[in-house]
């Protein structure tokens, strides 16, 4: 465990008391049996375009896909087994379809990365009566030995892009299936294998620290963004997150920076004192939260006041409403439309964790985050 001295860990720390964590079980509590402990290590999560459904994927033998509908009168999770041999999902995206949402994901089978798609699990409401209908998982015939490392969907749901080590790949929807329509070579220096979709376009981080921007509806070329050089080596990016106009990057050393896609400049934030940083996300009001720590994680809130940096240790995640459980291995995180954060729990017996930040933090919003709001 590497701990920096910028802010020491708590002397007499505690569980998270600021904001509320809920651990959502990967089943319909009281109706269906929880999946085996070994098949519930959640390592990947993505949201439906309207943010009402959360898709999560477990890794290991017996990997599964789960769909959680936390809102309205649903409140349960349905799951399907992934094709035999799948041990991990590397990337996933949900595309809005006319009848139902499509889920595309790349997964590892016997060391090879392969591309699959299925559709949402149709779920009936969850109080008086319920039902589920799932569709089979189908594989794209696609020879990409280096794997597809991330996905991003167009707003109309008819197109999505993926990326491997050499090319950007564009897929379009034809007859309820997807076909590869274009490939675009990446710049010779390569790119960090993540898309950063913002309201100002989709960004790629080039290995030389420059950002590239493209738009899925225009698509045919990249435009280089006039941005300051990236402040630490791209190889040391631990995790990142794109919100409406910001992209948050955390380094292996816990350094946190925010790229403002409107102004085109970086803001250096505080350093997270506990390593490794497992996941970072920014809420719609600009607040930044991160999960960090190797064996037992802590939740941190990072100030977005550039001139007054701090990283506040909010404590160890624990859930008592709904499930009673300690959240020791919270990793990747996404932000829902209601300002809630969804965390993967990559642990035996893992749950989907949702965090509702404390509303009292709003008084700490900076001009930068109000600026974000004004753009929407």
């Amino acid at each position, binding site marked *: 465990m590497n701990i920096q001295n910028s802010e020491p860990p*708590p002397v007499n720390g505690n569980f998270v008391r600021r904001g509320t964590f809920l651990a959502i079980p990967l089943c319909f509590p009281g109706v269906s049996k929880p999946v085996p402990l070994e098949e519930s290590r959640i390592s990947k999560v993505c949201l439906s375009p309207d943010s009402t459904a959360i898709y999560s994927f477990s890794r290991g033998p017996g990997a599964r896909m789960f769909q959680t509908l936390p809102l309205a009168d649903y409140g349960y999770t349905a799951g399907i087994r992934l094709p035999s041999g799948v041990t991990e999902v590397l990337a996933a995206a949900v595309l809005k379809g006319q009848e139902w949402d499509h889920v595309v994901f790349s997964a590892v089978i016997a060391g090879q990365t392969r591309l699959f798609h299925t559709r949402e699990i149709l779920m009936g409401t969850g109080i008086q009566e319920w039902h589920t209908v799932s569709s089979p998982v189908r594989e794209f015939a696609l020879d990409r030995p280096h794997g597809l490392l991330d996905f991003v969907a167009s707003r109309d749901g008819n197109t999505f892009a993926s990326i491997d080590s050499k090319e950007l790949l564009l897929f379009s929807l034809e007859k309820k299936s997807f076909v590869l329509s274009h490939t675009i070579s990446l710049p010779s220096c390569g790119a960090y294998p993540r898309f950063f979709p913002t309201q100002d376009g989709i960004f790629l981080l080039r290995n030389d620290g420059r950002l590239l921007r493209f738009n899925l509806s225009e698509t045919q070329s990249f435009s280089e963004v006039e941005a300051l050089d990236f402040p630490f080596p791209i190889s040391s990016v631990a995790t990142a997150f794109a919100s409406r106009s910001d992209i948050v990057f955390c380094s292996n050393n816990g350094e946190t920076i925010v790229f403002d896609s409107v102004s085109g400049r970086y803001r250096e934030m505080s350093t997270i004192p506990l390593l490794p940083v497992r996941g970072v996300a920014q809420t719609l009001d600009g607040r930044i939260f991160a999960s960090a720590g190797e064996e037992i994680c*802590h939740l941190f809130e990072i100030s977005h006041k550039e001139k007054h940096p701090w990283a506040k240790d909010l404590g160890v995640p624990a859930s008592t409403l709904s499930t009673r459980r300690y959240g020791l291995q919270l990793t990747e995180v996404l932000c829902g439309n209601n300002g809630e954060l969804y965390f993967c729990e990559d642990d035996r017996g893992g749950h989907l964790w949702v965090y509702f930040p404390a509303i009292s933090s709003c008084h700490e919003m900076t001009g930068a985050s109000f600026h974000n709001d004004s753009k929407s």
Partner: protein
Amino acid sequence: MHQTTESTDSKPEWSYLEFSEQPLSDSCWSVQTGPDGRVYIAACTEHTGGETATVLRYNEKNQSLESLFELDKVTGDLRDSGRATQCKIHYSFVPDPEKGFLHAATHLSGPPAGEEHYNPWASWSDPTRAFRGSYLISYDTGSDSVVESRLMIPKEGCRCLAFDGERRILYAITYPRDHFVSFRLADGCLTDYGRIGSVNSQCIFLDHKQRAYFFDDRGILLRFDPEDRMLRELPHVYPHADYQTPWHGVIYDAVEAGGSGAVYMVPWKSPPFLARFWPMEGAEGRMESLGMLTQERDATEICSVNLDHVGGLIWGADDRLYFVKSEWTGPCQGGRTSLKTISKLVSFDPSTNRFSEHGCLHSAVGQNHYVSRGAMTSGGEFLFGKILTSPAGVYRVRLPGHPPQTTPKQYLRMWG
């Protein structure tokens, strides 16, 4: 189902032995019969920062306690290190008849000096205060010396311990992460089989194939098979009240019925039900509920899991199960500190399915409802660990007509 219990005329002769040489001790979590037939006891200090636990032995001849060693001195993790302390042995004494050793794994919860509480989750990454880990201490009962002390589980405590003497492998549940691990004595190899949940099972028991059993927080019975080294869920849920979910159905204590293979269990759950498990029957064993053990109460009140309690399971030389259950007067809420409580020694005769009470256990100070573990000396006396007072102590009980032990197999229990 609530059991009817009879009173018996065979009142025990009993006394309370206080840990007078450990005045800061506040609990006794482990009482275990060693390979020499004598009973070993942990005098634990978890509520005073910067202290440590002492291992004691009961002298049956003069009914006294002798101090053997202090955990911090034999581990080298000294009480004033500034870290969470080696403050107790928590259900983690196991006998090693082949070597004549008693193995003891240390546990945490005592804060560093000057502090009142220790949160092991939040302090996990604290570079100066975090617990160093559970040490395994091997004590030679023949030469009366510690022959080895080594770090067994880094950064975590050992909640409970079991010993497969054939393979010379220990099994443990870690705290706070709640992982199931094995530790090979020959080379010190620690294998982590992963997280179980959030609530520690308080006991691991073994069957005649040396398979290890415990429950997770969902109340599901898990079995580890040393042949294929797989951990499996079995289709058994710990018995509980109709109005409850199976949650927190982890076992508190378990004892084998005199080599028969049947294992009697009580849970760390209120109200506690007695269960009997036959691990060798069929592929997955057979579970029976023998009913609720403690008093009827208003189930709309929230009762502390540590007030409505059963512990100290012993299989007697008369082929009866003995245990100690709590009893209190009035509503159970607020019971941890304000209620006057007692413990009752009860036996269960499997030949008649009848329960019998053998009188009360109570010391002069503190509450008396919580007995942790029990053990039987080779002479047939019972000892029960007491918490909730400082200094802590043990109850010594001699039942009229209860015979002494004859063979080690009758009194050795291979789990804590």
